[in-house]
């Protein structure tokens, strides 16, 4: 069954254990600058938002890669093949979510690959802000409904209209 990271920013306390766990799991070191998940800190509002790749169905990063170094596995996860990546960084500007980043120490790009099916960030999160759930049972259906609402709203009025925001609110 497909599983997905479900992020509930309302539960995030900004402890950044997800970043530490991600860096350790994927880079073998505690270096949050190399984490594939990032917690954005809204200084003035004391609010934190964990943020990472959501494995787009038709991924911009994948389409932009000139050497086919990003492929989709059987779980729908977009994986960077280090042996093929030349480090051109086109995927880092092509991903409109900014979730593919360049790692200067390897000369390759990095992105979330769900740790091969056992994401370290979700294991490390002490508050349940990041969970790894069966896509069918978890937030996925809710997300689909929500996405449709948002998309409809956006088609007619643009994504930042009150209606779209309202749709976002009801989906929460």
């Amino acid at each position, binding site marked *: 069954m497909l599983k997905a990271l479900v992020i509930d*920013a309302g539960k995030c306390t900004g402890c950044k254990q997800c970043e530490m766990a991600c860096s350790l799991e994927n880079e073998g070191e505690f270096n949050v600058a190399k984490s594939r998940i990032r917690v954005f800190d*809204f200084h003035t509002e004391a609010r934190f938002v964990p943020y990472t790749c959501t494995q787009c169905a*038709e991924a*911009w990063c994948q389409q932009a890669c*000139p050497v086919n170094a990003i492929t989709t596995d059987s779980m729908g996860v977009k994986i960077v093949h280090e042996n093929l990546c030349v480090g051109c960084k*086109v995927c880092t500007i092509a991903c409109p979510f900014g979730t593919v980043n360049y790692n200067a120490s390897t000369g390759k790009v990095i992105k979330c690959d769900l740790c091969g099916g056992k994401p370290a960030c979700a294991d490390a999160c002490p508050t349940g802000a990041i969970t790894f759930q069966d896509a069918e049972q978890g937030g996925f259906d809710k997300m689909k409904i929500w996405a449709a609402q948002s998309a409809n709203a956006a088609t007619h009025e643009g994504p*930042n209209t009150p209606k779209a925001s309202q749709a*976002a609110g009801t989906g929460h």
Partner: protein
Amino acid sequence: MNYVILGAGPAGVTAAETLRSVDSQASITLVGGEPEPPYSRMALPYLIYGKIDEGGTYLRQDPTHYDQQRIRYVTGRCGGIDSRAKELYLSGGEVIPYDKMLIATGANPIMPPIPGAHLEGVETCWTLEDARHILKLAEKGSPVVLVGAGFIGSIILEALYLRGCDITVVELAPRMVARMMDETAGGMLGRWCEAKGVRVLTNTRVTNIESGPEGGPRLSVGLSIGQRAPADLVVMAVGVRSNTGFLVGSGVKTNTGITVDDYLQTTAPDIYAAGDCCEGVDLSTGKPDMLAIQPVAVEHGRIAALNMAGHKHRHRGSLNMNVLDTIGLISSSFGLWQGAQAGQTAKVIDEGGYKYMKLEFEGDKLVGAQCVGMTDHVGMLRGLIQTGFRMGGWKDKLVASPERLREAYISVAQGGAVGGADVAARQHAACRVPWRGERSLAF
């Protein structure tokens, strides 16, 4: 249906694969102009400094890929097109009939009319064969003159540097990457290169190239500043031009590139065009322009193929963007980086630290950006510009503190104000239809 695709770069290969994905029965022929399997020109600099071998430049790694997709891959140069008889002629004499054809012949490097430019040791860096020549001539310590410090020139610069060459860059414009970034950014790149031991000559022209003196470097390059530079290798990187010369008399109208409509169809029936050879719409200006970058080639290839197969998809325009690594200093530019008329600008500069970010607004929308020394989450700039999100109050916050870009992005583009699964849901919605060209949620 019999589809023929002329040109086997990213646009052509993507088109062939897209056609197969929507039509399992069609006959699909992909015509490449070079002897190798389809490869990426963008990967050549990485071949030159040994990061990859030739196989690493291939667009698709599996040698059986085209057979598996039932795409017939043939090599040959185009000798002409008869759009009435619906036939493509290859220079070897082969005639390929088509029902629908895509022209994806890319671009060719411009060879400036400099006396001596034909001499051995003067190379472009455009094909695998070019790269092989450069590999032979660019040894550790070899004096190399690189003509052109635009986007392509600057990528080649890094490859030559990493091979250990002794580099002189000659650029006609007053700064490096003049068509990609402003004076501040171009100046930073120039100083960075000089600090690395590269000689950067801006406002300088090559006047002639001659054979070098006996026993010395192979060539001697005359410069408009009254000096000569010795060179074992001269690399020409002054720009590229759409490869359309074979279309004379074909009924396919060309300007600087092939003229296409919003469905990437040319002026000739059943002939489409995609990639560097055509002038698709620039999203930022709404006007046709040749945007010779990989993501645009792929986008064109995909959309043209869908239209060829009868699945109408309007091309709303492509965003111009570039990313460049100049000996470790990474820069990027997006959209209207020069700024909008009567627009507002936000910038943060750290000259000594080689860091720079400049944002360009029109009303409360982000329309352009450039960055030096900043790579994290840089794709967010594309997201904001391409989507045309209204930034609302975040515009003024960004004008005051551009470094708050990530906060602004989360708030504006990802519904950060509501948080939770909503962030993922918005991404999900935005991701579903990246090729439609319609702005569903985000695009």
